């Protein structure tokens, strides 16, 4: 089984630009990208929209890069309901090398995805991590108990780029 995620270049660049904006106190920014699982067979997810977390929906926590409040999560859940699409928590790291979730990310973001899945049981939801030109995705498919790492995340446009899952 392969899982592929695709963005139009314009959407991807808008997300990068948004996540690059400074926040009054948070070191990183967070947003939610929305997309459709096109085929259960091919497991292709096409991202179509993005909503940033509002400036006021961050919690000042110097122990991590960024922490969002319950209002931000409720807004994303409402986005799933309104759009009838899955939602992906998106943030960006500026570390060298391949993108990977930090310990804090791995411990806390899945709980946010659990909320998204409760309102979007038939959609694919998950986490996207941007990193320089690369991007990695972890996808909870409908009904699945655990996530799978996307085999590829494509940014379609000029320049065209495919990030591949690093084979272990």
């Amino acid at each position, binding site marked *: 089984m*392969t899982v592929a995620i695709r963005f139009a270049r314009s959407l991807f660049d808008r997300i990068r630009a948004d996540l690059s904006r400074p926040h009054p106190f948070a070191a990183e920014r967070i947003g939610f990208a929305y997309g*459709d699982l096109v085929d259960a067979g091919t497991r292709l997810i096409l991202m179509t*929209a993005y909503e940033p977390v509002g400036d006021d929906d961050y919690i000042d926590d110097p122990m991590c890069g960024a922490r969002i409040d319950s209002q931000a999560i409720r807004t994303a859940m409402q986005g799933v309901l309104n759009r009838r699409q899955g939602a992906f928590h998106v943030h960006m790291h500026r570390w060298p090398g391949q993108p990977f979730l930090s310990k804090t990310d791995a411990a806390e973001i899945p709980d946010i995805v659990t909320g998204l899945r409760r309102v979007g049981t038939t959609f694919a939801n998950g986490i996207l991590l941007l990193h320089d030109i690369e991007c990695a995705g972890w996808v909870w498919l409908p009904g699945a108990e655990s996530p799978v790492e996307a085999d590829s995340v494509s940014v*379609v*446009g*000029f320049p065209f*780029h*495919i990030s591949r899952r690093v084979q272990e």
Partner: protein
Amino acid sequence: MTSDRFSRQSFLGENSQPSIEQAVIGVVGLGGGGGHIVQQSAHVGFLHYRLFDRDSADTSNLNRLVTATEADAEAETLKTELARRRILSIRSEATVDVFPCRWQDNPENLRGCDVVVGCVDGFAERRELEIACRRYLIPLIDIGMDVHIVGDEPPRMGGQVILSMPGALCMTCLGFLNEASLAREANRYGDAGPRPQVVWPNGVLASTAVGLVVDLVTDWTRSMRGPVYLMYDGNSHTVTPHPRLVYHDGSPCTHFPVHQVGRPVFTNL
């Protein structure tokens, strides 16, 4: 072994060969153009193929179909099988999924491709393929040729290589597809007999297309940052950028809004 095999193309970049080997390339139409595409793609090192063509080889293909032999024409072997055989003879470890049907009958497998090369006959077929590729965010490289006879002049051979990238100019924006050409096709396609096709323009166009595919997946030239519309003149044996691109005013594609991706659905107004 692998490093020796691709050492002559190492200039493509350190990570280029893995990028080539992981890409899923779709080829629609495995005749004169598509045969060259799969053969060259296998030489370059592509490992994952999804091939669509419902036709079988026949004697009239032998003037150009590089994957076929006289025995294949005699046996009326499916073109998908000819393509698979050629790919595996060059890269035995390749995964070649073949669909001896119209791509429209098996669209799920087209959607999973990273890049599609369209080697189809006719404008209507091109438009359908472009619509599908735009819907599912797949770069489409279209190739084709035709021969026209005007008065007493020698036959004019022309062709095109177009990169239709979702979010950028489409084949209608570029003026290649329009209502007039579609209507004209409905009446007649070409003037020099049924579907004029010869091997050398197929080779030129297919080689150019493979070059674009390699550039897309490796970005080795770091210059592919806009639409590609190349014009082939078979009489002067040249490939040049189409003047349409030079005079384009920079306005975006209005035919395929980039947010309109995925399966068409009804939405609440």
